[in-house]
């Protein structure tokens, strides 16, 4: 809390200093100040393109808002978008281009973990602050560097861990996990198994599905009869087939089912074939459907990005957004603004100061800049923590059933980046 007061105080001071300038000087300054250049590393092509499109829309909306409110320290944000092809090697090249060719102040916006991990060393070498929006655990795990931060979206470890109390208390303690047999699925397996055991529950069976599988019927008989909760995190093109076959296997008598919306991000929940999901639960990074108790912040954010109450594009009700993730772009850009203003950021020479200013942040109250909810930033691990949402499918809509506390998402620090030199 103290840190955030300092931030506000510093911001006020900056404002006060500006106010003491003669009017013409302020005016001139606002007119001639070079823009803050934000290198936007966007998945325009490759497997991340569908996410990239919504990350782009959210970014444009956030920049329009921030610029409309006077920019950062009176300077407008200019977005320099570069496609990384959802390709780690290109990602590294793009980050270098931001630093050396485009003279960007920061790099921002990467989603896919392998691209983040491929790009972060370049950001470190170039000493370019790199604000990722990837929800991977790689930032907080300590594998990256001082210049890489994730202040706008929570990481998968905290997300998975925070599900366990709700699952154990409301759905059941005997869990069977179905997950794709590679690192993404293994993370869920490891994080959730430990978390449910801490709640006095147990995982009866881990069913790992080969990534190339497109039919799942033969795996279902492995689900133990005494299973109370089925936890699934299937991804890729065969997800809809998975749901359909699961429905055919269980019929009307099924265990409780809990999944991650990553499986069905940007898919219409009311699609034919998904009826079986009725009554099942999903983790959501940010509730896709506007809820009865929707905040004014979420309403404003939706309107700015152009998303309707069902999480779809205002211009096409079938164009469902990546609502559970894309808020991260919006919030990260607002953190960037707060960080630059608190650091008195004037140009690339102040990049180190910017890193320190963001590291000094802690509480981020819910608001127009944080419409997903309040957050707690850990300056040592460069990772933000926040509320997680659990929604139940009711009448083909995701209805919020539970909001976790931030405490549920916390875990012990695995790194202290502040000990690394700037």
């Amino acid at each position, binding site marked *: 809390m103290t840190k955030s007061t300092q931030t506000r105080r510093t911001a006020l001071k900056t404002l006060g200093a500006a106010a003491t300038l003669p009017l013409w000087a302020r005016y001139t300054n606002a007119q001639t100040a070079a823009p803050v250049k934000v290198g936007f590393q966007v998945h325009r092509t490759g497997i991340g393109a569908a996410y990239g499109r919504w990350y782009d829309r959210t970014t444009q909306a956030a920049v329009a808002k921030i610029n409309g409110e006077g920019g950062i320290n009176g300077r407008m944000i200019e977005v320099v978008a570069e496609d990384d092809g959802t390709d780690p090697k290109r990602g590294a090249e793009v980050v270098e281009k931001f630093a050396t060719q485009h003279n960007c102040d920061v790099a921002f916006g990467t*989603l896919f973990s*392998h691209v983040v991990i491929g790009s972060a060393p370049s950001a470190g070498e170039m000493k370019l602050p790199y604000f990722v929006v990837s929800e991977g655990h790689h930032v907080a795990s300590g594998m990256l560097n001082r210049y890489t931060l994730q202040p706008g979206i929570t990481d998968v470890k905290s997300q998975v861990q925070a599900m366990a109390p709700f699952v154990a208390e409301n759905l059941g303690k005997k869990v069977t996990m179905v997950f794709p047999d590679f690192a*993404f699925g293994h993370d869920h397996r490891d994080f959730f198994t430990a978390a449910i055991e801490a709640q006095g529950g147990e995982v009866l069976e881990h069913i790992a599905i080969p990534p*190339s599988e497109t039919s799942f019927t033969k795996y279902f008989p492995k689900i133990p009869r005494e299973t109370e909760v089925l936890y699934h995190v299937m991804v890729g093109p*065969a997800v809809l087939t998975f749901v359909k076959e699961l429905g055919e296997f269980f019929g009307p008598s099924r265990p409780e089912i809990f999944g991650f919306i990553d499986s069905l991000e940007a898919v219409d929940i009311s699609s034919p074939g998904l009826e079986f999901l009725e009554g099942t639960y999903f983790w959501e990074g940010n509730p896709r459907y506007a809820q009865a108790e929707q905040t004014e912040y979420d309403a404003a954010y939706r309107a700015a990005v152009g998303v309707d109450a069902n999480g779809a594009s205002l211009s096409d009700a079938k164009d469902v957004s990546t609502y559970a993730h894309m808020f991260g772009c919006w919030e990260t850009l607002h953190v960037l603004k707060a960080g630059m203003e608190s650091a008195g950021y004037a140009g690339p020479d102040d990049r180190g100061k910017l890193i320190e200013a963001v590291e000094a942040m802690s509480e981020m109250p819910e608001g127009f800049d944080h419409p997903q909810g309040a957050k707690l930033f850990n300056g040592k691990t460069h990772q933000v923590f926040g509320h997680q949402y659990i929604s139940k499918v009711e009448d083909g809509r995701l209805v919020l059933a539970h909001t976790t506390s931030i405490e549920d998402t916390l875990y012990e620090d695995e790194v202290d980046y502040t000990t690394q030199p700037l």
Partner: protein
Amino acid sequence: MRVWVYLIALLSPGSALAHVSEQGFVLLLPTGGYILGGAATVALTVLALAFAPKAKVEALFKTFRLPVLRAIGIRFGAQLFALIVFLLCIGFGFIGASDPLRNPLTLLVWTVFWIGLVCIQGAFFDIWRWINPFAGAARLGADAGWRAPFRLPTYSHWPALVLFIAFAAFLLADPAPSDPRRLAKFALGYLGFSVIGCALFGPRWLVRVEVMTVLMRTYRQSALVSGGRLGVWGWRCVRAATPGLALALLILALLGLGSFDGLNETFWWLGQIGVNPLEFPGRSAVINETVAGLLIANIALIVFYAAFIWAGVRLAGGNFAISFRVFAPSLLPIAIAYHVAHYLTSFLVDAQYVKSLVSTTFGGEQIAVTTGFFNTLATVRIIWLSQAGAVVLGHVAALLVAHALALKLYGDRKAATLSQLPLALFMILYTLFGLWLLASPRGA
């Protein structure tokens, strides 16, 4: 250090966010039935052709004269305009938006030209003769009194074939073919190369070396309208002169590229090269595999085609080398059908970016690009059946063309039909392959 990071990257989670979208719905469609239906349609065509009298088949290829615009001046003007647009877009490639979907050059080359214009050229009419910027540049030189000092030392299409393979490798294997700056360098370099080639060797350069003109002149043979006449798809293949070996191979390479561009995204191919289909590591990580796959696919296609042609010659008599060249153009309708089918989905999305760019250029609003049509079973079914329909139609047209070519070569129905049996089998198998490709799960 870097190597270590990449290794970790390959093992790390998060790439799993790859989108479900239309692929998920395609897997829910009864594609098995559709595939059998498509292959059966092609097989029935074979049967019908076997019993069709010669005159009936020839009648199919009747053409009708259309009122033609014979205004050379307008054409030159249009070509010059296209050249100016191309040059402007190259300029914007260097200095414009670095976002490929907001840069005119990337959209011009990959969406307008490579998808839009090639499809129009191969399926409908010869648009290239009106907007060929290379021809515009050559004509500009000629009008200025420039005379080429050398004669092109070859009359064959070998140089174009080599350039086409290079282009295909750039399209499929280059890590960043959409990057505006990179594309601008390639485009400017290639335009310069072509202009110098024309200046040194005269306009024959355009029809023997300049690969885009060669490609477009080849594809016009499968179009409905060509040379001011309207006929069924592929009618001009039947009337055109027998291609030389290099051009025959170029036609095979067109189909080879169309087949591999698609195959390389399937779970099956990713499994072959040891890539997790749910965690594609990016184009940079598979450059060698992609180039090798492209070459292998082309060689395999040539070998299979040759084997089926050889079998036909064994059955009906004739000369293998001649038959190999004679029947190659019958593959053009299939190649263009693959092109249409493969690019339909990306065109539906990227054309919106083109529209948005045109709109903002003329002071209009940015258009909110949607992919909502990938999100419902009904629209995905329409898209899939359109793709499959194109593939089946392409094969039916190819069979008709091949049969007409056989009648021309052998003169009588019996020998022609006999010679066509292996090639017909080839086309039925290729239909199955093409439809399987559309129905396969993709991960890249």
